[in-house]
Structures are given as C-alpha cells and as structure tokens.
C-alpha cells in the first residue's frame, strides 16, 4: 500500500470525462491510457504523469476505443462510425460505418486489422493502412446472430459475445464462419468477454453476478475444466443482491484477472486455483472498465455509473490508476507441504 492521499483506491486522474466511461485501455508500449466516454469524447492520458495528452470529439457517444500503436488508435461510436485517431496531430478520420451503433472495437496485431462489432448484428474487419474511405478499408462483414455486446482478441482468436447469450469464436485467418458457435453457459445477459492471455479460452461475465471460465478445447478433458463462479454480490437481510459484472481484465504476466462490478468493487482472481486473490476497497460507483498496463504494474479503474438502473443521480465519473502490488496479482500456489514444519 502506498502512502499517497487516497491510498486505497489509487491515484485519480485529473480532468476525467464528463459522462459515463465506456472503456479504457493502456497502450502496449507505454503507460498511455485511452478512454472512451458517453460524453462523445476519446481522451488520451499519460497515466504516469497524470496528464491529459489529447482529446477527440465524436458525433455520438463513444462506446469503445483501442490503441493501434502508441501514436494512433481507434474508436467505436454510437453514431455508427468507426474512427481512426492520430494522437500526434490530433487528427481523426472515419475508417468506416456500421448500420447501427458500434459497440466494440479491437485491433489485431496478428492480422493488422481492426475488428468492430455493432448492434446492427454484424462484425466488420477493416484494414487501417489503406487510405480512408469505407470502400477501400473494409475487409469483410460477418453477420452475427444478435447485437454484439463484447469482443476480445488474443492472437488469431476472436471471441464475440452477443445478445441472446450467443458466443462465437473466430479464427481471424478464416473469418468466413465461426470456428465455434456457443451459447453462454450463464443464464443471463453477457456483459463482458475477455480471452485468456495464453489463448486457451475466455472469461465471460453476466449481468447476474457471475463469471464463466471457458476453454476453446472442445475435447471432453478440455471442457471439463470449465466452470463459473459467483461474484459481486451482497448478502443483505438474508437475500443476495446481485450486481452485473461489467469488466474483466487479465494481468499480462501472471494470467490472473480482475473483475469489476456494479457494486463498485474490483476483485482479483486466480482462475487456475479458483481463488480470490484480493479485493480492493470499494470505489464510489460501478466499475465500468478495467485495464492493466503492459507490464501489469498499473491498473486503470473506471469508476463510472453504467446506467444499470436508468438515469439517476450518481457519483461523478472518475478514473483511478493504482499501482499493483505483486502480492495482489501473483497466483498463490496451492497448499504445498512445508518441510520446515
């Protein structure tokens, strides 16, 4: 624990977005943090310096954003557009359009493509290197069974979670049809899906305080490893209050992961040993998004009301960057016999 003024929650970034935070991501090359918000903006922060480095305004709420490299990124907006943002020149251009609000955007380092998922029930792949203009940059459109709610890319695998609890797993090298079509093993609406850093499976969270750990391996042995657990619940007066799990973020080094729920808590989990490693002190409001920095030393936490109860007065939206103690994220090996005792 640091001795800094808000020691429990981490350092709060100055000049946060003025409305709900839809997502935030650390760069893969630096401690820069890209934040998309319902206030129609995408902001770039230098997390270590606690400084706002850039701001891009969009025509509608921005539902997702991601880095391309350290100098550019992409955003998905509710105004149906996919945009490319160039930070150095504070320049932005439209990469393409969907027929509905664009919910997710991912950049695949393996294929060099941008993948976007939209509520128009399609997935689109874009080539960002081509000059702007939808006709040239669009690589392909892939129909989804339902509106896309969450997406995750690791290596060549893309996991798409949609409404109706569908989960499609794609191989980015052959997008013609999903490699696997699945149904979420959770009974309720999917909130977030994130692939394991080792590429063997994905974690999927639902609105009903539950996270499922799934594996790509379809063999019986592979599938026997899958499980789901309850989290972000509060027991009060003999009944459980169940909160949606909005965010999952895997630690890039240890493979452990953090979940954030509408209860304002961030929990660290060890998926292999099925243990909760740590629970950070409560944040003012729902956890909207989580991201680990490239080395896993920093964790960005978006504490921002996610409208789970409709419009209501709520705590101001805030971004906290906390330094992560190794103890909090390192998997605890299962009980080993201690030779000393």
């Amino acid at each position, binding site marked *: 624990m640091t001795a800094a003024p808000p020691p429990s929650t981490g350092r709060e970034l100055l000049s946060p977005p003025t409305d709900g935070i839809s997502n935030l991501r650390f760069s893969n090359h630096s401690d820069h943090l890209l934040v998309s918000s319902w206030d129609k903006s995408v902001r770039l922060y230098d997390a270590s310096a606690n400084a706002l480095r850039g701001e891009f305004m969009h025509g509608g709420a921005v539902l997702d954003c991601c880095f391309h490299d350290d100098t550019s990124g992409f955003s998905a907006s509710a105004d149906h557009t996919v945009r490319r943002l160039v930070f150095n020149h504070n320049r932005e251009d439209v990469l393409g359009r969907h027929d509905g609000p664009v919910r997710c955007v991912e950049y695949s380092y393996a294929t060099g493509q941008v993948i976007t998922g939209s509520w128009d029930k399609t997935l689109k792949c874009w080539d960002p290197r081509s000059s702007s203009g939808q006709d040239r940059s669009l690589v392909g459109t892939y129909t989804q069974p339902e509106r896309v709610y969450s997406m995750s890319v690791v290596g060549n695998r893309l996991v798409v979670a949609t409404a109706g609890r569908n989960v499609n797993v794609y191989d980015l090298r052959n997008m013609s049809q999903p490699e696997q079509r699945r149904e979420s093993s959770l009974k309720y609406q999917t909130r977030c899906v994130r692939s394991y850093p080792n590429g063997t499976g994905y974690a999927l969270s639902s609105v009903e305080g539950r996270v499922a750990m799934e594996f790509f391996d379809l063999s019986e042995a592979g599938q026997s490893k899958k499980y789901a657990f309850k989290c972000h619940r509060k027991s009060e007066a003999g009944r*459980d209050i169940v909160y949606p799990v909005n965010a999952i973020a895997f630690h890039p080094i240890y493979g452990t992961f953090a979940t954030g729920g509408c209860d304002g808590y961030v929990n660290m989990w060890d998926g292999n040993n099925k243990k909760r490693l740590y629970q950070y002190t409560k944040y003012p409001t729902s956890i909207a998004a989580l991201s680990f920095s490239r080395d896993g030393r920093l964790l960005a936490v978006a504490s921002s009301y996610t409208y789970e109860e*409709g419009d209501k007065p709520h705590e101001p939206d805030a971004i906290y960057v906390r330094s992560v103690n190794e103890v909090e994220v390192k998997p605890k090996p299962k009980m080993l016999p201690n030779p000393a005792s």
Partner: protein
Amino acid sequence: MSAGEHKMLTLTETTCGTLLNELQIIWDEVGESDAEKDIMLLELERECLEVYRRKVDQANKCRAQLRQAIADAEAELAAICSSIGEPPVHIRQSDQSTGSLKAELRAILPQIEEMRKRKSDRKKQFIEVNGEIQSIKNEIYGGGYASKDASVNETDLSLRKLEELHIELQALQNEKCERLKHVHEYLNYLYLGCSVLGLDFKQTVSEIHPRLGEPEGKDISNGTIEQLRTAIQRMQEVKTQRMQQLQDLASSLLELWNLMDTPIEEQQNFQKVTCNIAASEDEITEPGILSAEFINHVKAEVSRLEELKVSKMKELVFKKKGELEDICRKTHLIPESNSSVDLAIEAVESGAVDASCVLEQIEIQISKVREEALNRKDMLEKVEKWMAACDEESWLEEYNRDDNRYSAVRGAHLVLKRAEKARVLVNKLPAMVETLASKTTAWEKENGVYFTYDGVRLLSMLEDYMTLRQEKELERKRQRDQKKLQGQLLTEQEALYGSKPSPMKNQSAKKGARLSCGGAATGRRLSLGGNMIQTPRHDMPPPAKATPVTRNAKKSQRITHDSLKDDGFQTLSSGRRGLDLAGLPVNQHSREVEPPSPMMRKPFSPISSTDSSRSNATNILGDMNQKHNEMLQKMLTSNNTTTPFTPPKTIPTAEVENIMPQAASTPSTTLPIPMHLAMTPMQKPVPSATLQMAAITPAKAVEEEIEYSFEEKRAGFVLPRSHLVNLMMQV
C-alpha cells in the same frame, strides 16, 4: 550170573547138604524110620519147588511191568511229539544196543521229561498269544465277543499253528493300530468340528464313549467307531446346515451393506462372515465361526440392519412421497390416488406390506407424474406467465391506490418503473388469456383430458377471470360516473367550506378491494400467502404494512358473497390462485440466488413482496380501454385512468377517498417518469424476459421482451421492426 550169586548158590547148596547131613544125623539118632525119612525128604523137595516157582512168577511179572512202562513212555513221547509237531524219536532201534529193559526205560525217561517241558513251554506261548488275540478281539468286537476260543487246543501245538496264531495276532494288532488311527482321526475331526461349531468336545466324545475323552486307552470297538462315524456325519450335517445359514446371513449382510452404504468400520466386525460366503464346507475352519452363539450374533446384526433398512425404506418412501408431492405441487397437479399411497405407507408402518413394493409403486407414480408434467410444461409456463401478469396487475392496482406513491422515498424510481412495466403487461392480459384459453382447448383436445391447475380446470379459471374482469369493468364504469357526481358535489362543498378531504384517511377502506383473493382460508398454502402479506413492504407507507390475512379474507369473503356470484368452488379456486401468486415470491426468497423474474434481474431493486391477495383483475379494465393507443403506451405516457376499484359495500367512504387519487392519476404523468422520458425517450419498459421466454411468447409480445443491454437502453437503441422479424425467425 555174577560170581557172588554163584557163590551164594554154592553156599546154599552146601548149606542144604550140611543140613541134610545134619538131618541124617538127627534121624539116626532119633531113629526114624526110612519111610518117614522119605516123606520128609519129599516134602522138603516140594516146598523148595514151590518157592522157586513163586520167585519166577514174581520176576516174570516185574518184567512185564517194565515193558509196559517203556511202551507207555514211548507212546507218550510219540503223542507229545505229534502234538508239538516234531518228528517222533525212535527208541526201539536203540533197543538192541542198550539191552535190558530197565536201561531202555532209563533212556526214555529223560526224553519224555524234555518233551514234556517243551510242550508246556509251547502251551504257554499259545496261551499267551491266544490271550493277546482274545484281548484285541475283545477290544475290537466289544465285550459281547465270548471267549469260546480261550482254551488252547492241546492237540495242536505245532509251530505252524503258533505261527498262524502269531499272524492272526499281527493282523489283529494291525487292525487295532488302524482303528486307533481312525479313531484318532475321527476324534481330531470331531475336535475341529466341535471347535468350529462351538461345541464342548469332551462332552460330545464322552457321549459316544465315556473313555474316548481320555488321552489313553481309547475304545476302538466297532460300535464306537460306528458311533463316531455317525457323530461325525451328524456334525457335518449340522455344519452344512449352519454354514448354509451363515452364508445366507452373510449374503443378506452384504446386500444390506450395499444397500445402506454401511461404513467399513461397521463391516469390519463381520468381515470373517462375509469372506466365507463362497467357501466350501471344509474351508471353514476358524474356531467358533459356526457356533450357535456366533450365528445368533450375526443374525442379530442382520435383523438390526433389516430394521434399519425398514426404517430407511420408510424414510425413502416418505422422501419419495415428498418428491411426488413436490412434483405435483410444482406442476400444479393434484396427486391422484394420494390416499392409496398414504394407505400403503400406513401399511408399511404397520409392517403389513413390504416397503420396497410401495416404493416401487410410488416410483411408478412419480414417473407417471413426471411424464404428465413434461406434457404440461409448455402450458404451465404460459399459465405461470399469466399468473405473474395477474400478480403484476394486482400489484399495480394496489400501487395505484397508494396515495403516497409519488413521494420521493428511496427506491421510488424503481417502483415507478415497475408500474410502467406492469401497465404494459396488464394491457396484454386479455390477449394472453385468449391465447391461453385457445392453447388450453387445443391441449385438452390433444390429450383428451381437462387441463387442471391445482385440481381446477384451467378453462374455468380463465372464464372466471374474464367474468370477474367484465364485472369489474362494469363496476368501474359505474364508479366513474359516481365519481364525476362526487366531484361536482365536492367542488360545491369546496366552494362552501374551502377544503377537500384528505385521501389519507381512507387507507384502510381501500384494503377491501382485494377481490380475487378468495375468502377460502382453507387452502393449504393460504398460510404462505398470509405470511407474505404480513411481510412489511419497503415501498409502502406504514398504514399499508402488516395487514393480517384474516381481515382481508373476511372482507373479501364478504365481498364475494355480496357482489359476486361466485359459488364456493370458485372462491376456493381463486383463493388458491391468489395464493400461488403469493407463494412464488416466497420461493424466490428462499432460493435467493437465481432470480428468475424480471425484477430480480435489476440488481439493486428490492425484491418486492407482492401482495397477491389483492385483486388480479382490478385495474386491467381501465387499461383495456386504451388498447387502441398502444403506441402511446409504449412511450410510457400511459394516460392510465386506473381508478382503484372498491366494492359496493364501502362506496360511501370510497367516494370520498377516490377524489384525490383520481385527481392525481388522471394525467398519470407521475413525478419521476418525465425524467425517464426525457432521458430515454424510446426506452422499452421491459428488459424482463430472457431469450427462452421470448421464444415461447407470441409474435406480438416479442417486441416487449427483447433484451437490451444497459448501453442500448441508455443510447435509446431499439431494434427496428425488420430485426424483430428476423429475430422471430431465428427463434
């Protein structure tokens, strides 16, 4: 003739001559006559002759005697020789050489002596052998064997005979050995058997023969051996029998263990029983394992387990019965022939019937009910939905009657939201009932039986519901007219006195409006509903809290009697229905984790304890009027003119009370809602149903039941019509 004899003769001759001379002299002197002398001399001569003759006779006799003696001796010798089987000694030949008879006799006598000695020796041997034979025979054949052969046959004492006897003796000795061995074997066997069977060996043996138990001097007679043999046979029989018994017990033990998962520690005690389950007779050697005591011990264990099993079976039967009832309850079936099961259970308890038999019976029933439940599942889901809708309807009615509903208490926005949803739902109710009814008829046609819900035919329930609704609609219309009148009256009053009566006074009167809650307090689950009613509600002001069920029941009973034409049966059924609705939230409470209702999906919302005893139908009527402006509904403007329905009896108070609510509710734009509208103009009120539910709802309903994420709701994103159709196709 020896010289001495000769001398004596000569001497005698001389003496005779001298004597004659002397006589001559005497005679001369005496002067005898010659005649005399001659007679005397003749006498002398005759007397002498006589003496000679006598002596010769004597000698002759002596010689004959001697000869006789020799012959006798020879005969005896021969007899002895023949009896002891030796060649006769020929004495006669040696006769010539020895000469005199006396010598001969002398020679023969020691031979005889010798032979006699030999004979007696031999005889002694015979007696000895015979005695031994006798004793062995006695041992073998028992005391009954007479010693008829005890005396030795004197005539045959030959070595051969002796040899024979020896052989016989040998044979007898062998036999004795053999028998001894046998007896030992038998005794050994008996000993082992006795130890296995847990009998007293000594006693068993001494019963056969008193001396058998002793270490020495075993009896080996035929009788004993026979007895031993029979004893062994008997023992074996006992052993086989007991073994059979034990193995039977063991198998039942194993069975029971298996059945009841008896812990190993408990089994350990009887491991030696069960390990012998397949052993053949002679493999069972452990002492005491077949003892009556041990068998009784095992028997006791078996009977203990048996009892345990029976009690467990009973438990199982009860459990199964519970399961059956549970399934029936869940599927709202009336368990058929429940009484027969009860009877059977009683029979089991009294021990008249095997529990497993009953168990089987119950299993069959369960499977039957399951099948039926599967058949009813689709229908039931629809019924549940309808019930839920009715529930919401009654809640909404209650809510509409709450004058403080717009006060800004905590969680009020949630309640408002619920109300919005409920209104939409209530609008759909008639269509729902209609489809349900048609589905039910189809189902009944298909299955050939009535579709019953808790024993009541669903169609009649639906009919009841619809008539109730219509009646209430009429009632409402009448009231509206009345209210209008009242309003006029009041404005006049206001003009006179300057104030309106507060609606707060009449809280309790409104409670009477619980129509569809049947007054039948007889239902099993009424208590459940009662509990629900008594649970305090978070969103209601204190006066609405904790209304005892009896009061409601009484009131509604009165109402049903007064204002409705319900007969007893209908009352009961509607009471049940109401209670079911009340029961539902309770289940959810207890389950607590998987919130299936739309309300539960909203994380922060308190789980409302829906007071289902309120009228299901009351405020549908108003909504029905607005079926045409569905669009407006969707926009949640909801110009819902729902006026709380009050029974005719309480009209006087209701007249006063209804003024405020009406005034407040006619515009129906409740306070928090505009904010909702402002922010989310296109918002769908119901994110309620999961996809599965959407799958079974008719096309019209789907539009309302599409799930939206928080972001979609916030962005006001609505699926366009075409998408809906697509969705329908996919579903």
